[in-house]
């Protein structure tokens, strides 16, 4: 093997190594900035089942318009969903202020994702429950899903 061949092999190998490193970095880059899927592409994957569901659901009931406190000391209090995200808690800045000792100052919030609604616990002391399950991550709620906070129960209503 001549010196030249060895030199070429050496340079070529370093080039391969760096091409690999740079491609890995470029995959990460496109993963970070390209992850926002365009509306059209998302439609292909997700729209179809969603539309079917919407068709089935619509005749029975429309989309929710407000949150209503159905049980507890503040029963009857409501907040319109077009002001979302809706903060729930004992604090003065809460959209739904609950007079309930088991509720934290900033307890939970209700926010929209597309045509779905989510309830999310804001690190409250006593937790937010759907049914008997304490939620640990933003959870989808629909019309009539009972969200329990302290001794209070809230629902989405239309």
């Amino acid at each position, binding site marked *: 093997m001549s010196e030249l061949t060895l030199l070429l092999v050496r340079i070529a190998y370093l080039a391969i190594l760096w091409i*690999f490193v740079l491609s890995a970095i470029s995959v990460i880059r496109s993963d970070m900035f390209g992850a926002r899927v365009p509306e059209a592409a998302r439609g292909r994957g997700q729209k179809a089942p969603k539309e079917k569901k919407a068709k089935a659901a619509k005749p029975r009931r429309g989309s929710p318009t407000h949150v209503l406190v159905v049980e507890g000391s503040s029963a009857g209090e409501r907040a319109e969903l077009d002001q979302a995200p809706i903060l729930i808690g004992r604090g003065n800045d809460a959209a739904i202020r609950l007079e309930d000792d088991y509720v934290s100052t900033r307890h939970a919030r209700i926010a929209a994702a597309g045509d779905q609604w989510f309830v999310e616990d804001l690190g409250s002391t006593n937790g937010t429950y759907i049914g008997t399950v304490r939620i640990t991550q933003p959870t989808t709620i629909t019309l009539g899903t009972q969200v329990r906070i302290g001794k209070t129960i809230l629902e989405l209503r239309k």
Partner: protein
Amino acid sequence: MAARTALPAQGANPIIGFVHRRRRGAELFLLVLALAVGIGAYAAVGIGVQGRVPADIVGYGGWLTALVVAAHVVVRIVAPYADPVLLPVVAALNGLGLAFIHRVDLVDGTDLARNQLIWMTLGAVLFMVTLVVLRDHRVLTRFTYTAGLSAIVLLLLPMMPVLGTEIRGARIWISLGPFSFQPGEVAKVLLVIAFAGYLVLHRDALALAGRRVLFVDLPRGRDLGPILGMWLVSLGILVFQKDLGSSLLFFGLFLVMLYVSTERPGWLVVGGALFLGGALTAWRLFGHVQTRVSVWLDPFAYYGEGTNDTGFQNVEGLFGMAWGGLLGRGFGGGDPTRIPIVESDFIIAGLGEELGLTGVIAILLLYGLIVERALRAAIISRDGFGKLLATGLGSVFALQVFVVIGGVTGLIPLTGLTTPFLSQGGSSLVANWVVIALLLRISDLARSPVPDLTADAEDDADESTQVIKL
């Protein structure tokens, strides 16, 4: 960093329509390049050392390709949303390590590369088994204390009279017949699982209670129990097994996870003080620690005739890297076997000699990518345990690379640890493949779209409305 504070951010994810793509095609593309790195290194070693492309390159390359393709197919089936970069990076590092060990074999007439290939196969199989069996990493929370206990048992095993063997001054191996095994590497993974499970439950107590002294929130006295326990375990490893590297690794890992889960810098102050105290005491009391430190401070005073030559390995490593320069001598062009055990702890010095600074920087970047991907998985993970587990696995990786490469390059005193995926050594290789499988599992769950709960929720809603109507 706790799940609590990160929740609003990913609550926002579905809101702005941020959906991760699967990227399996990108993974396949990177895997092809990774194979080019691994098999190319093998070919370059053949050309450089023997003057021809080795005859068995088809069989060798085919075997590597089969392993990598099998791993890719398993990922595609059971973890379709997993991170696309981790597997290729690991495959490339592993291939490069194999080629270099083969290069050492060609000079020394040993057969380490074949063993390493067997271990790599075992590692890849365990990688696939982990992915297939473990469909949700949260299952691991059930084994918090089991994992912790087995880690401690594994760490104690080398102290057993028959099983344990002392190699090169460190008593960290157990030998079963012809096989020797380093249980510390497996214990490392188990400890991360145990810490993550423990901290995710107790982080509030550790984070909230405490006194404020000079802008630092100091933790409560009775919460110091676990950190003191871990400190003692680390010191025990240092004293009885004479293994500086593992002791530094375990304590650092615990400290990082404690800090990440509680967001309290006070723990770093306490842990740093404990570390300094322990390190100073060890330096005063133990000869082998003193040797390491003095060799680190002035390696050339312990090299050559008229000295006891304790710095021989370090100095030869430094010579090798200096001789490699920017572009390296090329595979076969250097003389890395001058460095004792170059195929293991000092592999980065050997690679520095033959690939130069350019190659070493590429390798360091690959390690950086693994750590970055692990922390990324931690950030986007939706549950606290997954966050802590990914952070722990990422930081154990980062610490290990820092400790061993820092030691070889003379940044910190030399401590014996394997360079993940490159070094010759089966237990480390297998354990690290499992670490990568766990990371892929966490990132798969984190990147997959939020499961559509509407169907279930509607059923519930129907029931509850009916109840109200009644």
